């Protein structure tokens, strides 16, 4: 450091950053691909100084001998300003033809975290909670069929693993309604793994297209009734008017983005959507509204959402038009039913919270509520305040379990399906996590981040890697609205990978339920199959304690 250089409180060195770039001068050809690809401008071409000591051993010549020879060389420099700190995405490594550059995680907690709030702006980011592991990974399936009930053959036996989305009357009432031609709530038979709400806007057009393509292939070629939620961002007009809408769950949230377009499309819809999801909360930022930052609000997004270009779109935390949450739920559910002639199931989605039981009790007395989706604290997002993402919310396992046990005590466990989301498969154990939650009482599972990872190669991990979905510079083009970035993603490749993911999930799910002796129905609430090596967790979840 130069003696006259300015040192401010936020002057950081490379050591203070969470990621350090290692660059190998010997192998670098200075092609510049790494600096071009870096989404945050963390690296740049720089002229470095170098000094060589020239020792002249020829004493025969008079005059000055030897000395310093100052020169320069070109290389890659990592910037240390908080605004340009490396996010560890390693796109530089991906782009480098000579394998000479890459980020390395710091060997101690970074200092950047104390300076990221420049200008008083609290840290906002996309991604995940960055908290690896979790209770779901620790749950084992311990009730293996042996001797008395031979295990089933996951490869050869028939399996029926679909689930129901929709309000289901008690058998007696349903039969009465059937006899009297009364109204019976619409119910959809769907695949238990649902692609959760990732909006058009949060995701790039190519990513969205790829997911829709994949879902359509799964339905129409493989016979798997997979459904996808739109998230809060509306739905492209052509999709609204296509027969593929039946695979789509339209989400309405407190910003009502895109709903003008949707409402106007209703008379022209060829088919009904699968369901309507009313978002009251999400796991990534519980109690806070959605957030699409201005970077991503381009012409297309603005048109679909019905907003001006280039402005941030924070949804309010609650549905502002309603007087109270109870009325919001009841009235919105009813309005949505009316919009589609009572033919489409409508259900709320809430953040995991210790008040979930109150919501559920409310729904249990509302004959229109088609289910309840609960998004646990590990839910991911395109954009949120760091503090919301890391510290707000309720773990999904116990929240879901409490709700299911409550339905059991009411005798309504078949009437209101519960859907669980938030961090499922975050360690890669998608089928095991999903099956554990189903056996704790979930009728289905909502996933988002793992879809981005598996289907589109999202670089995010649980160790603070990348997490820049919010600013529209996703280096893989998954959450970007910049054509230069999202063209990196081929929708057909995304679709292909999505299909791979679902097909392998299906195999794994069968590999879990078959040894448990289950095949004729999804083992919802089969808690006797579960065990965990933590006594307190076992007691809390009402499952077997095993060591």
């Amino acid at each position: 450091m130069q003696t006259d250089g300015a040192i401010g409180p936020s002057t950081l060195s490379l050591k203070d950053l969470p990621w350090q770039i290692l660059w190998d001068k010997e192998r670098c050809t200075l092609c510049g691909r790494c600096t071009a690809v870096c989404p945050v401008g963390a690296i740049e071409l720089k002229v470095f100084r170098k000094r060589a000591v020239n020792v002249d051993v020829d004493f025969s010549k008079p005059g000055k001998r030897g000395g310093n020879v100052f020169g320069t060389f070109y290389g890659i420099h990592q910037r240390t300003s908080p605004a340009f700190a490396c996010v560890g995405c390693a796109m530089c490594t991906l782009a480098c033809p000579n394998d000479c550059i890459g980020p390395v995680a710091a060997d101690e907690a970074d200092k950047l975290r104390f300076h990221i709030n420049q200008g008083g702006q609290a840290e906002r980011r996309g991604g995940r909670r960055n908290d690896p592991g979790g209770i779901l990974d620790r749950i084992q399936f311990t009730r293996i069929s042996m001797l008395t009930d031979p295990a089933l053959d996951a490869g050869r036996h028939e399996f029926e693993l679909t689930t129901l989305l929709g309000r289901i009357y008690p058998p007696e009432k349903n039969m009465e309604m059937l006899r009297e031609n009364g109204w019976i709530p619409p119910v959809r038979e769907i695949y238990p793994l649902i692609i959760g709400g990732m909006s058009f806007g949060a995701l790039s057009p190519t990513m969205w297209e790829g997911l829709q393509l994949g879902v359509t292939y799964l339905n129409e070629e493989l016979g798997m009734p997979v459904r996808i939620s739109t998230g809060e961002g509306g739905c492209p007009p052509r999709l609204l008017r296509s027969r593929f809408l039946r695979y789509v769950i339209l989400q309405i949230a407190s910003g009502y983005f895109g709903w003008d377009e949707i409402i106007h499309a209703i008379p022209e819809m060829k088919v009904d959507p699968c369901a309507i999801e009313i978002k009251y909360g999400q796991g990534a930022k519980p109690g806070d509204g959605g957030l699409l930052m201005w970077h991503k609000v381009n012409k297309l997004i603005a048109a679909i959402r019905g907003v001006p270009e280039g402005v941030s779109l924070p949804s309010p935390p609650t549905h502002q038009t309603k007087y109270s949450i109870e009325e919001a739920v009841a009235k919105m559910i009813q309005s949505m039913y009316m919009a589609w002639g009572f033919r489409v199931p409508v259900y709320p989605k809430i953040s995991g919270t210790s008040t979930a039981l109150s919501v559920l009790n409310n729904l249990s007395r509302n004959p229109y509520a088609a289910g309840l989706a609960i998004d646990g604290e590990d839910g991911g997002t395109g954009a949120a305040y760091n503090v919301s993402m890391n510290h707000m919310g309720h773990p999904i396992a116990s929240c879901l379990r409490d709700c299911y046990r409550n339905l059991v005590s009411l005798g309504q466990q078949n009437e209101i399906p519960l859907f669980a989301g938030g961090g499922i498969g975050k360690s890669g154990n998608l089928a095991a996590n999903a099956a554990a939650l189903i056996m704790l009482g979930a009728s289905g599972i909502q996933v988002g981040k793992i879809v981005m990872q598996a289907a589109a190669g999202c670089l995010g991990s649980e160790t603070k890697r990348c997490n820049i979905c919010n600013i529209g510079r996703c280096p893989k083009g998954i959450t970007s609205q910049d054509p230069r970035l999202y063209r990196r993603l081929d929708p057909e490749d995304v679709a292909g990978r999505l299909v791979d993911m679902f097909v392998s999930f299906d195999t794994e799910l069968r590999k879990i339920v078959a040894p448990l002796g289950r095949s004729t129905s999804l083992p919802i609430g089969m808690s006797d199959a579960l065990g965990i090596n933590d006594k307190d967790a076992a007691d809390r979840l009402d499952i077997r304690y095993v060591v």
Partner: protein
Amino acid sequence: MCRLIAITSDTPVSPMAAVRALDVMREGHDGSGVGLMLRDLGGPFEEMKDAPILSGIFTEAGIRKLDSFMINLGFLTKYKISIKIPKQTPPGIPRRDMYLIRAYEYPEDWEDLSGAEKTARLLRVRLDLREMGRSENDMIVFSFWPDTIMIKEIGDPLAVGKYLGLDNERLHARVIMGQGRQNTNYAIDLYACHPFFIEGYSTMTNGENTAFVPIREYLEGRGEPGYTGFFSDSEVFVHILHYMHTHLGLGLPAYKHLITPLQESDMEAHPDGEFLYHLKRTCRKLIIDGPNCVIGVLPDNTMFMAQDRKKLRPGVVGGKPGMYVFSSEVCGLDYLLPDRNKQYDLEPMHLDTAIVVPDRREVTLCRQTEPLDLPH
């Protein structure tokens, strides 16, 4: 794997016949227990078809508790069969004070009760007695129902049968269900011993119901006091049967549609497809899983056999007009009816329910793909 035998016959048969048939099939049970249900009784009970019969095992203290309880309710003993217990107890059979089979006169104030009220009260009495005996284990009550006797005991079926003198003519019955147990529960408990009984419905099963816990939880929420106990994963079969008849008003052919519903492609082709869609959805929590052969008897003494969705268990029905036998193994059937025409033996498959109605003229095979006789 347990062994099952069920006999339905125009002329009363000794329960020992069923026990001997179980003995023929003894490879499949381990002496952990035998259960018998006798209905449509011959002998002295022929004359008292309406009198509720209490069956159970009691200690001396338990009998005193029972007597004072029943007298308080106004029940008077009408008839009883005393089982003389030999001094020497064979190995493997626990020593008991008394095996009770006792018919009662209804209390006077029950006379004007409706049928439903009467059955509800009989159930209540049985549950109360069961509860009273729980702490001291001095009263084990199997059934309290007209024209029904249940005998259950731990031990080898043949040894138990001889020990209790089940050849007794007074125990002859036209409908007999028997199970030789292969214990698959964690502990041997008499209440886990099949057949299971509730308000005239009974079932016994040869298998393992892997969907037990969600089914149990659902049944417990139906508001029926009789849906209790659940010492065995197979107990839910009788409750589902009871629920189907009493709550949903559906006939026996619908039973398979509850426990192992059709898949979508079959349902689309079914004439009652829409009804079955709704039934499957609303009764989703009653879908069984795992290998199971279910044999059951309805209050009118109709006998049936149904298999799990994959037909993972054996089961055969054979006989001739006047007498039919439902057996888990062909050798059991051969033992009881060696001279039947074996060509007419039926092994119900994954969609079938084999039914013999009380006139015992034929076995009807009801397939799930056939139309249902639905109430309009």
